[in-house]
C-alpha cells in the first residue's frame, strides 16, 4: 500500500498498480509546473533528478511532493536518469522531460496497465515545432515500463536497455512484446522560442562533437551530430555527416528511416535535389509506409520538373496506411494533407483547376490552418471562374468559418487578399475574436481605396503598441501604408502624427521624402537627395502592392531607379499593360535588356499572339542564348501554334485520325513541360492589377 501526495489529496490503492513519474531537470522552474500539473492527480510518486539548478526547481518539485535527487552533472544523461530510477517505489515508471506535458490518456492508464502482459509501452509523442497546428512531428517513444526491468544506456541520446537478471532468463528468452499505449505526450521544447531561450542546440552540438570524437564509427552519434549541425545552420557539414552515418548504419537500425528522411530533406534544402532523388529512389521502397520519404521524393522530383513521377510519389505518401505509419517519426500531415496539397499544386500547374479544388478542400478540412492549402484553394476556385463572393460561400459550405480558430481565419483571409478578394478578406478579419490582425485589415482597406479607415486602424494600433512585443515592426508596415495614403492625396491632414511613430533612424528620411512628394505635386519633377533613396525605393514597391502605380513611379524616380528597372517591377507586380507600354518605348530607344525582351515576349504570349511572341523570343535568344525562360517560352509558342493549326485542320476534317493523334501528342508534351514553368508567377491580386 502506498500513499502519495498530490496537491493535498490522499489516494489509497489496495492491490492496484502504482505509477511513478520520473524527470531529470536543470533550471526548469518556469516549465515544471506545467509538466507536473498534468500528472500529479494520479502519479503515486514523482522523482526529480536535479543536475545543478540554481533556480527554484527543487523547491517547486518538493511542493508537488516529489522525491528530489541532487546529481552532479557528468555529461551523461543515462547516468542521471538511472539515478532516479533507483529511487522508484512504484510498479511502473513514466519518464517525462520538463518541457513535456501529458496531453491525454492519464485517466485510463491504471486500468490499462493493471491488465498488462508487456513490460514496456510506447506512447504517442507530439513534438510541436511552431504555433500552428501543422507544425508538429508525430512519433512513438518508449516511456512507460515496469520498474526494475530497464535501465538507460548512452551518454547523449539515452536508450532503454533491458536489465538481464539471473532468474529472469526465461522471461528474457520469451522476448516480451512492446505494448502500444494511447497516452499522448506533448513536447514543446523544440519550439523556436524555447530552443533560443535554453540554448539547446549549442549545448547538444558540443556534447555530440565530443562523443563523435570518442566514437568516430558510431553511426547513431554521427546522425545526431548531423541533426545538431542542421539546427545550428551548418547544413553543408550536416550533409556530409548524414552520408557517413548512413553508410555506417546497421540496415535494421530503428533510426535508419528517420536518418534517410533528414538526409534527403537537407540535400533538398541545399539544392542538391539529384542526390535526394537518387537516395529516395532506393530507400523509399524499403519503407513503403513512411509518408515523409514519399513526400520528400515528390518534392525532389518536382524540383527537377518531373511532374508525373512527383505525382506518383505524392500519391504513395497519401496511401500510407495509418496503422503502419505509427512505426515512424512522421511530420504531421505527411500522409494526408501535405501530399494532397502538393497534388493540388501539380494539378494547378497543369491547368486542372477542378481537380486541384477537390484536393485542396480535402486538405483544408483535415488541417484548417494549413497555409499552402488555403493559398492554392482560393487560387484554384478563382481559376474555375468563381467570383470572390462565391469563393467565400464555398469556403463557408466546406468548413464553416465561424468554427475556425483565429489562426485558421487569418490564413483564409490572407489567401483571399493574395487572390485579390480584399472585401471578403476584410470581412473575415473582422470576425476574428482577437484583433491581432489589424495590419491585414489596414492593408485591405488601403488597397480598396478606403485610406481614411486605413489610417484609423493605424492610429489604434499605435495606441495599443505598448502591450505588443513586436510593436515596432508591426507598426512600420502599417505606418508606411498610411503614409502612402496621405501622399497619394487621399487624406486631408499631414503626416506629422505618423512621422512620430517612425523609428528615429528613418524619421529624417521620411520627413524629407514627405516634403519632396508635396513639392513635386506643386512644382513637377524634383530631385531626391541621397538619404531618401532607399526609403523611396522600398515605398515605391509598397505603393505598387497598394494599387498606386503613379505614386510608385514618382517615388521610383526619387530613388534614382532606372525606367527599365521600374518597368520590370511594374510587370512583376501585375501591371502588365503599363509595364509592356514602357518596355516597348524602351525597345524603340534601343534600351531594352534581356529581361525586358523576356517580359515583352511574355505579354504577347499571354494575349495569344504566339507567332509574334516567338519572333521576340528568337530575337532575344540570338543575343542571349543562355536565357532559359525565353527558350522555354519560345518552345511553348511553337507548340501552341501547332495546336491551333491542328485544331483548324480538325475543324475542317472532323475526326481526322492523324491530326487527332498529333493534337493528343502536343497536349501531352505541353503537359510534361508544365513541370518547367517560365512565366511570371502572379497571384490573383497581381493578375487583377493588369487592368490598371
Amino acid at each position, binding site marked *: 500500500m502506498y500513499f502519495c501526495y498530490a496537491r493535498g489529496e490522499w489516494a489509497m490503492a489496495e492491490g492496484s498498480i502504482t505509477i511513478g513519474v520520473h524527470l531529470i531537470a536543470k533550471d526548469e522552474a518556469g516549465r515544471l509546473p506545467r509538466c507536473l500539473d498534468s500528472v500529479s492527480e494520479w502519479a503515486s510518486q514523482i522523482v526529480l533528478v536535479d543536475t545543478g539548478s540554481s533556480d527554484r526547481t527543487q523547491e517547486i518539485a518538493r511542493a508537488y511532493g516529489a522525491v528530489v535527487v541532487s546529481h552532479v552533472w557528468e555529461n551523461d544523461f543515462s547516468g542521471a536518469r538511472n539515478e532516479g530510477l533507483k529511487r522508484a517505489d512504484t510498479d511502473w515508471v513514466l519518464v517525462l522531460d520538463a518541457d513535456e506535458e501529458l496531453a491525454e490518456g492519464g485517466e485510463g492508464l491504471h486500468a490499462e496497465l493493471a491488465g498488462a502482459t508487456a513490460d514496456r509501452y510506447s506512447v504517442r509523442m507530439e513534438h510541436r515545432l511552431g504555433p500552428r497546428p501543422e507544425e508538429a512531428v508525430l512519433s512513438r517513444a518508449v516511456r512507460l515500463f515496469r520498474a526494475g526491468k530497464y535501465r538507460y544506456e548512452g551518454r547523449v541520446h539515452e536508450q532503454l536497455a533491458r536489465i538481464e537478471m539471473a532468474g529472469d532468463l526465461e522471461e528474457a528468452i520469451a522476448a516480451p512484446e512492446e505494448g502500444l499505449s494511447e497516452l499522448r505526450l506533448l513536447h514543446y521544447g523544440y519550439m523556436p522560442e524555447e530552443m533560443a531561450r535554453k540554448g539547446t542546440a549549442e549545448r547538444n552540438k558540443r556534447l555530440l562533437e565530443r562523443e563523435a570524437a570518442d566514437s568516430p564509427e558510431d553511426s547513431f552519434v554521427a546522425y545526431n551530430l548531423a541533426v545538431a549541425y542542421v539546427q545550428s545552420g551548418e547544413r553543408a557539414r550536416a550533409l556530409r555527416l548524414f552520408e557517413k552515418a548512413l553508410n555506417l548504419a546497421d540496415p535494421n537500425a530503428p533510426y535508419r528511416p528517420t536518418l534517410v528522411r533528414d538526409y534527403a530533406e537537407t540535400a533538398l534544402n541545399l539544392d542538391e535535389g539529384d542526390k535526394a532523388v537518387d537516395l529516395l529512389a532506393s530507400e523509399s521502397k524499403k519503407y513503403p509506409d513512411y509518408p515523409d520519404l514519399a513526400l520528400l521524393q515528390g518534392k525532389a522530383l518536382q524540383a527537377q520538373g518531373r511532374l508525373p513521377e512527383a505525382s506518383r510519389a505524392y500519391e504513395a505518401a497519401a496511401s500510407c496506411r495509418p496503422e503502419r505509419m505509427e512505426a515512424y517519426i512522421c511530420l504531421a500531415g505527411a500522409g494526408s494533407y501535405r501530399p494532397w496539397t502538393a497534388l493540388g499544386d501539380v494539378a494547378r500547374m497543369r491547368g486542372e483547376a477542378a481537380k486541384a479544388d477537390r484536393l485542396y478542400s480535402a486538405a483544408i478540412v483535415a488541417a484548417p490552418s494549413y497555409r499552402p492549402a488555403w493559398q492554392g484553394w482560393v487560387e484554384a476556385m478563382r481559376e474555375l471562374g468563381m467570383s470572390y463572393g462565391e469563393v467565400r460561400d464555398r469556403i463557408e459550405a466546406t468548413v464553416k468559418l465561424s468554427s475556425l480558430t483565429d489562426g485558421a481565419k487569418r490564413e483564409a483571409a490572407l489567401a483571399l487578399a493574395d487572390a485579390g478578394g480584399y472585401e471578403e478578406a476584410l470581412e473575415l478579419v473582422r470576425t476574428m475574436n482577437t484583433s491581432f490582425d489589424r495590419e491585414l485589415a489596414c492593408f485591405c482597406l488601403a488597397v480598396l481605396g478606403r485610406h481614411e479607415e486605413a489610417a484609423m486602424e493605424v492610429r489604434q494600433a499605435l495606441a495599443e503598441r505598448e502591450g505588443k512585443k513586436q510593436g515596432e515592426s508591426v507598426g512600420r508596415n502599417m505606418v508606411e501604408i498610411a503614409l502612402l495614403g496621405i501622399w497619394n492625396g487621399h487624406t486631408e491632414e499631414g503626416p506629422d502624427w505618423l512621422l512620430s511613430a517612425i523609428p528615429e533612424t528613418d524619421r529624417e528620411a521620411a520627413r524629407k521624402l514627405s516634403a519632396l512628394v508635396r513639392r513635386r505635386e506643386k512644382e513637377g519633377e524634383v530631385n531626391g537627395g541621397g538619404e531618401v533613396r532607399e526609403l523611396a525605393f522600398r515605398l515605391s514597391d509598397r505603393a505598387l502592392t497598394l494599387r498606386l502605380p503613379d505614386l510608385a513611379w514618382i517615388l521610383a524616380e526619387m530613388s534614382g531607379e532606372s525606367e527599365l528597372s521600374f518597368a520590370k517591377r511594374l510587370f512583376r507586380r501585375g501591371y502588365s499593360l503599363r509595364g509592356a507600354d514602357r518596355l516597348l518605348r524602351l525597345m524603340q530607344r534601343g534600351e531594352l535588356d534581356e529581361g525586358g525582351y523576356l517580359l515583352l515576349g511574355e505579354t504577347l504570349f499571354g494575349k495569344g499572339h504566339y507567332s509574334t511572341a516567338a519572333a521576340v523570343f528568337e530575337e532575344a535568344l540570338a543575343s542571349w542564348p543562355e536565357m532559359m525562360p525565353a*527558350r522555354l517560352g519560345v518552345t511553348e509558342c511553337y507548340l501552341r*501554334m*501547332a495546336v491551333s493549326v491542328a485544331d483548324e*485542320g480538325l475543324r475542317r*476534317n472532323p475526326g481526322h485520325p492523324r491530326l487527332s493523334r498529333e493534337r493528343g*501528342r*502536343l497536349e501531352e508534351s505541353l503537359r510534361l513541360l508544365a513541370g518547367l514553368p517560365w512565366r511570371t508567377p502572379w497571384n490573383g491580386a497581381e493578375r487583377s492589377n493588369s487592368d490598371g
Partner: protein
Amino acid sequence: MGEPLLISLCMIVKDEGATLARCLSSVQGAVDETIVVDTGSTDDSAEIAKRYGAVVVREQWKGDFAAARNAGVCLAQGRWILFLDGDEALESSQHAQLRQLATRDDYEGFFLQVRNYVGNGEQGATVNPILRLFRNRPEYRFQGRIHEQIAASILESRPGASFHLTELVIHHYGYQREYIEAKDKVRRNMDLLEAALQAEPDHAFYRYNLGVEYLRSGRPEEALEHFARASRLVDPERTSYAHLLSKYEIRCKQALGRWEEAYVQTAGAIRLYPGYTDLLQYKALCERALGRQAEAIGTLIEAMKQGVPQPIYHTEEGIGTYQTAYLLGELLEEYGHYEEALLAYKKALGYRSSLTPPLYRMFRLLRVAGREKEIPQWLKTSFRLASPEAWAKVVAILLQCRCGRAAAAILQEKQGRKLPEGFRLLAEAEAELQRGRLDAARRGLRSSGRKGQGARDSALASAAIAEHLRWLDGDVKEPWSDRITIALASSSQGSEQPIKLTGDELSGGVWPQLQRLLEGSYSCGKRQEGLHVLHLWQRTLESPEATPAGADALVHGLSAIADRHLALLTSSDFGKRHKEALTAARLRLPHEDGM
C-alpha cells in the same frame, strides 16, 4: 490520208455513265481516237461515249478482262495505246507532255503515276506507277482473265524492250466507289446474319459473326451487345471460338473506354484460356490506360516469356513476338526507362527484321538521348544490310527521324557510296540541311544537277530543292522558276499582296518541300526566312483546297523547331538538372513513327 494517228485511247466500260464524261473530256486534245468496248451497259454509257466521238464496240462479257481489252486494242490505229478506266481522268495540264512522249522511239512503254483517292478524298492519295501507254504492235496483247497485264506480253516478244517512268498523272477516283462497295458488302453480310438470327435467335455463331461485322464497321457498342449475348449461349471451355469471343468483347470495352471493366474481364479470361497471349497484351493495354504503367510493363514481359500462343488459339501476327516487344518498348519509353526500351525495340527487330516502326523509335530515342553517333556502328554490327536498297531505306528513315548526322556518316562510308547516285546526292543534301550546313547542302545539289539521264527523275526533284536552298542562302542572281520560291520571293520583297500557293499546287508534293524549307531555315539559323516560310504556309492553309496533309506537315515542322530549342536547353546547365523532364517532353512531341 492525213497525219498518222499518234495516240489511241482504249477503254472497257460497263455502266460508267456517272463518270465517263469526266474521263473522256479529260483526254480531249490529248488522244487522236477513242475506242470504247461496252461489255453490257444498261445505262447511257454508250451514248455518252459516242457524243465524245468514240467508236463504241459491243462485246459480250465472258468473264475475261484481257479478252475484252484486246477487242478494243486490235481496232486501234494509233502509234500508241493509252488505256484508262471509266472512273479515271487524265491530268489535263499535261497533254503537251503526253504527246511529246509519244514522239519517242526509244521506249516501248511508259509508266504513268496513278493517284488513288481513298475514301472521300480527304485522306490523301496513294500513288502507284503503272504501265498505261504502250506501242501499238500486233504482238502486244493483254493477258490474264482477272488482273490483266500488258508488260509481260511486251517483254515476251521483245526481251530488250525498255520502259520509262514519267511524271504524268492519272487521277483514279474509283477507290471511293470501292469504299462504298465494301460498305455494301458489310451491309449485305449483316442483313443476312440478322435475317438468320430472326429465325434462330440463339444461334451463338451467327450472333458472334454479327458482332464481328459491327466491330469491323467501327460500332463497338452494338458489337458488344451481340458478343455479350453470344457468350451467354456458349460453353467457354468447349466452344472452339469462345476465346475469340472473349477477346472481342474485351476489345469492344476498350474501344468504348470502359477500361476497368475490360481489365476485370481480361483477368477472368486469362484464367479460362491460359497461354492465350493476346489476352496478356490486352491486359497490359488496360493497365496502361488505367495509369498502372509499372504493372503494364510487367504484364508485357510475362507475355513475351509466354511467347506465341498455342495453335488452338486464333491469334494476330506478332503477338508474343514483335508486336508485343514493340508495345513493351513504347511503354518503357513512356515510363522513362530508355535503355530497356531500346532493348525491347531491338528484340522486335530480332523477331522480324523487315519491320520499320521499331527503327523509327530507336533512331529518335537515340537522337534525343544524345547518342545519335552510335547509330552507324550499331547498324553495321546488328544488321546484315547487304543490298543498297536496304541501306537506302535505312537512310531515308534516319532522315525522317531527323538524324542528319547519322545519315551523313553512313552516306560517306563504303555502303553509302554504293547507293544509287541520284538518291545519294539528294539524301546528302537533306542530311547537311538538317545539320544546319547550308553551303554543304547546296554543293551536293549542284553536282547532282550535272549527272546524266539515269538520274533524271531525282534531277527534277533536286532542281527544285536546289532553288529552295538558293533562296534560303539569299542568292538572287538568277530568276526564280519554282512555284514555292516565287511565292516566297514575293513576300520577302515586301509585296502588299504576297502570292499564295493555290489549286494544283496544294496536292501532294508541296507539303514535304515546305516542311524541309521551314525546318531547314531554323536549323541554318535563318530566322527571317523561316518566318517567311511560316507565313506563306499559314496563308496557304487558309485556302479551302488545302488538304489536311498540309496541316499535319506544319504541325510536324513546328514540333521539329520546338524540339531543336529543347535540345539546346538540354545541353545547358539548366538542362542538366532537368534532363529527364526535358527528354520526356521531347519524346512526346509529334513525330514520324513509320505507321
